[in-house]
């Protein structure tokens, strides 16, 4: 098991045992800023080497997946979860969008196994963050225009994760690998260490969700485990169709499987206020994030290996 995952387990354990351990809010903020910028810049460096037009097809396909995933989980939440429409729409939006934390873990996972992947993947993180939010709002409210939509758009597009990821992509793209070599000691070399601390805090927060989970019971648990596996298969299939490497397909599968717990909760709170935020956060943070980190990513890696061995690269 990767050491960063052990840090996550330490956080969960300390949280369950009600330890006093806490990362100061400012430290957590700094960690997430460093991770987002590092991820963005890595992607930007690679993006500069790619003919942008050739990526356009992949980008369109990935955005389409972002629109489709929430449409698939919404009826399940409505029918089998017997959830109110607003809650179902909000949870569907969480699961259609992505978690940058989970992305960082899969990057570390592949890195420590020397498995290559298309390094421009951070671009897909940005592209996948937004469509599901729009779908969620439409599912909850119908086709709304005007102020509400404008406010959510502002909330999402100028939220921390998009600004830092897009900013990092642009900086990496403009400065290139040589230009950014000077920044490596802060952003790239300590990536695993920063991620370990970040995951320690995530473990503590995950543990705090267990109370809510107990209240909402079995459906949320089952949904939080089965949805990522199902979505990962879609991501894997799409990765194969787009001709990605095995590593790239694992990353895309992980992105499809991950559920948002920062950008989407904030957007849903403004746009769909009647949805219960405790419900969606308990599922994405309390079930799906730990599932992906502990079980999901190795599973998607194994599945990708099987798929590519069986039918070969596209």
């Amino acid at each position, binding site marked *: 098991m990767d050491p960063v995952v052990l840090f996550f387990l330490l956080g969960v354990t300390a949280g369950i045992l009600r330890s006093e351990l806490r990362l100061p809010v400012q430290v957590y903020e700094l960690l997430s800023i460093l991770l987002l910028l590092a991820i963005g810049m890595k992607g930007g460096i690679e993006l500069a080497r790619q003919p942008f037009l050739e990526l356009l097809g992949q980008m369109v396909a990935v955005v389409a997946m972002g629109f489709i995933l929430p449409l698939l989980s919404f009826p399940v939440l409505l029918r089998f979860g017997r959830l109110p429409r607003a809650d179902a729409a909000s949870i569907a939006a969480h699961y259609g969008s992505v978690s940058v934390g989970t992305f960082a873990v899969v990057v570390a996972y592949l890195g420590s196994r020397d498995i290559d992947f298309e390094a421009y993947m951070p671009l897909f993180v940005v592209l996948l963050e937004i469509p599901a939010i729009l779908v969620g709002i439409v599912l909850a409210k119908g086709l709304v225009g005007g102020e509400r939509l404008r406010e959510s758009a502002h909330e999402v597009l100028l939220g921390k994760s998009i600004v830092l990821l897009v900013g990092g992509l642009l900086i990496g793209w403009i400065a290139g690998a040589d230009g950014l070599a000077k920044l490596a000691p802060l952003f790239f070399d300590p990536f695993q260490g920063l991620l370990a601390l970040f995951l320690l805090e995530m473990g503590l*927060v995950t543990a705090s969700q267990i109370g809510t989970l107990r209240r909402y019971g079995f459906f949320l648990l089952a949904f939080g485990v089965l949805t990522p596996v199902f979505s990962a298969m879609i991501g894997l299939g799409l990765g194969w169709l787009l001709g990605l490497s095995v590593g790239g397909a694992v990353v895309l599968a992980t992105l499809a499987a991950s559920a948002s717990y*920062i950008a989407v*909760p*904030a957007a849903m*709170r*403004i746009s769909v*206020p009647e949805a219960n935020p*405790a419900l969606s*956060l308990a599922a994405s943070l309390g079930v799906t994030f730990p599932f992906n980190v502990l079980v999901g990513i190795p599973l998607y890696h194994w599945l990708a290996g099987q798929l590519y061995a069986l039918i070969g690269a596209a």
Partner: protein
Amino acid sequence: MEQHPRRLLTIVTESSIESHLLRHIERWGAHGYTITEARGKGARGVREGNWEANRNLRIEVVCDDATADRIAAGLREHYYDNYAMILYTCDVDVLRPEKF
């Protein structure tokens, strides 16, 4: 020194609606506000503020009676149903009435 009576409104609520709420409060006539981060327990359970999607604020506004009533009515209409929010008021005295 002459003292002037004003009202102090204290709002405790979710930080996710901060920018939204502040725009409303200014539109309803407040000249300013003070914000501090908050943690606590209420009707919606313990709000530890341990997660960035889950933080809380305490917003204080000093204003005249009419503005205080307008803000209270506005909050009841727009926010009480769907957000974790409490509001209480008390009477305070200020030295520089033109500021409030």
